[in-house]
């Protein structure tokens, strides 16, 4: 087992033609941090081999993308289509008034977890991504973004996306990652959003990689008094790590993290959350449900940190999981560090099985065991789907879950 040396990425940066001081520093920081390993609590359950045993070269845009080859839209919102980090203008829709593509400021803000060496690698090696600015008071229905991942097994895409929600603005954004165009080895994606006072961003993610791409996706939000909702569905990935963090940098910030992760045979899915309450009078909710079938492994590590001065914080966390078969594994670890004394923080995690009595009840009425299982799983996950404001995405998530159940 050979662990790579992060110095091997130095050449890649030098030859990228995009070397800047900030990127050099980021790579130097990454090298100092070193690769994560399973003895680190945050990385205990993740399958790290794919990214620590080989050095990936930068993904190149090779394939000629035709509109007919790409999946249909999920919503009626305008859609931007990217091939790796490059916007394909010809097959993208025009953005609505109030939303503009902008130049991204590639910096690491204080809200990002310094534990994540992949975040620093992302900053050092990024080849592009989405940068959106939503104007003050603009109320936009939604924008859909499709990232077509193009590459080979030894290539990585460091995708860096940013969204800035100016004061009082509103936007829903759906990010779809599609790895079936090629055989990209590793997606290291960083989504950084800032939500100013009175603004609201609803961030949807449909995360799957049927072609086997190893996924590290970090959603990080800086809340300056605004509201951030993150709704995610994670399934059909051989190995995926979804990290969702936010920091309440100003009072009256709100966050809702809502998601479902479905692990099938041989799959490892990690969901890591980090709720940082550093200002008073903020409210966050974390609500996750997991399903794991034969041979799959799902992990939830949910952190809530409430600083001493963050009085009147309300921070709740819930993660419930169902194991469908023997040999499937669910690991759930809530972690609360609360230093303020006038707060309301509740947390609950469960791991269980489907109710046998309910299964028999359905079967006695004529429903086959397979269909009965599907009904109960759908019912279990319905609470997550119900939390989703956009009905088109509700329907899409429900369909994905039903399809997953019929294949599992």
């Amino acid at each position: 087992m050979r662990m790579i040396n992060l110095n091997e990425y130095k050449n890649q940066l030098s030859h990228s033609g995009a070397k800047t001081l900030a990127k050099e520093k980021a790579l130097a920081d990454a090298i100092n941090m070193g690769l994560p390993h399973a003895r680190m609590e945050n990385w205990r359950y993740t399958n790290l081999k794919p990214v620590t045993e080989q050095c990936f070269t930068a993904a190149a845009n090779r394939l000629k993308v035709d509109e007919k080859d790409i999946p249909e839209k999920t919503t009626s919102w305008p859609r931007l289509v990217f091939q790796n980090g490059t916007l394909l203008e010809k097959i993208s829709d025009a953005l609505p008034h109030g939303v503009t593509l902008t130049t991204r400021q590639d910096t690491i803000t204080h809200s990002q977890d310094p534990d994540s060496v992949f975040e620093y690698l992302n900053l050092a090696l990024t080849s592009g991504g989405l940068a959106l600015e939503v104007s003050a008071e603009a109320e936009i229905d939604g924008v859909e973004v499709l990232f077509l991942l193009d590459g080979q097994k030894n290539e990585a895409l460091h995708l860096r996306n940013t969204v800035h929600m100016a004061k009082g603005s509103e936007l829903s954004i759906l990010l779809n990652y599609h790895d079936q165009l090629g055989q990209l080895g590793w997606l290291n994606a960083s989504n950084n959003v800032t939500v100013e006072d009175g603004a609201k961003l609803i961030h949807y993610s449909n995360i799957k990689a049927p072609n086997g791409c190893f996924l590290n996706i970090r959603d990080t939000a800086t809340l300056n008094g605004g509201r951030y909702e993150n709704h995610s569905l994670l399934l059909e990935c051989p190995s995926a790590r979804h990290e969702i963090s936010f920091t309440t940098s100003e009072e009256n910030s709100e966050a809702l993290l809502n998601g479902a992760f479905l692990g099938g045979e041989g799959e490892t899915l990690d969901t890591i959350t980090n709720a940082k309450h550093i200002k008073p009078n903020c409210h966050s909710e974390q609500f996750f449900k997991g399903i794991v079938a034969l041979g799959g492994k799902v992990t939830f590590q949910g952190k809530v940190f409430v600083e001493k001065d963050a009085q009147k914080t309300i921070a709740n966390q819930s993660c419930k999981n169902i194991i469908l078969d023997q040999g499937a594994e669910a690991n759930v670890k809530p972690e609360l560090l609360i230093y303020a004394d006038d707060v309301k923080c509740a947390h609950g995690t469960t791991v269980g099985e489907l109710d046998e009595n309910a299964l028999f009840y359905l079967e006695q009425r004529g429903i086959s065991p397979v269909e009965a299982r599907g009904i109960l799983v759908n019912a279990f996950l319905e609470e997550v789907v119900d939390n989703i404001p956009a009905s088109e995405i509700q329907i899409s998530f429900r369909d994905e879950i039903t399809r997953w159940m019929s294949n599992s």
Partner: protein
Amino acid sequence: MLSIKDLHVKVGDTEILKGLNLEIKAGEVHAIMGPNGAGKSTLAATLSGKPGYVVTAGEITFQGKNLLELDPHERAGEGIFLGFQYPVEIPGVSNMNFLRTALNAQRRYKGEKDLDAGSFLKLLKAKAAELELPADMLKRAVNVGFSGGEKKRNEMVQMSVLDPVLAILDETDSGLDIDALKTVSKGINTVRSPEKALLLITHYQRLLDYVVPDHVHILADGKIVRTGTKELALELEEKGYAGVA
């Protein structure tokens, strides 16, 4: 229609049914009464195929087929319905969707086409009204927040919609007040027909005032020890199990 011969059933390490014999013909209503622990619910569970009930000897034939070879959902497709003693609550699954899925699953088993949504809804509303179950309860999750009586009435709505050939009602009358009992009995009586059969498991005689049985059996210590007419139930009420079995 149903023929049970020398049935022995084990639950865990304990033998509960010890050579039970029972014959039910189409058009008949049978009542089974007996002390607690006698095996009444075990019989119902075994007939419906509940996991955990192991048949160690004997045979069960239903309309000429070996029932023990069929899975629970197949037995339902063949026309067997179990009215549960303790109907389970299923959050997140609406009564309406559940029943429609069940009905269509049974129809497909019989080679029939699914019933369209409109016709199903009409059927369901009519049956619910007959059993005095408010229509808005149909949109709610199965049995969630239902009182005991409402759960039993919900069982009857399901029975009414699924239209089974053999309905096994396991203490359907327990926990019901007089009015609910009358409503439930009305529901049971509407499915009586020369082609169908009913097996009522009950502790109390009063259900049998409303749903008059053709045969009453006393199940004690894992076997049917006595069979009679509806008068036997009255005798039981007077003398208790010890005086009659």
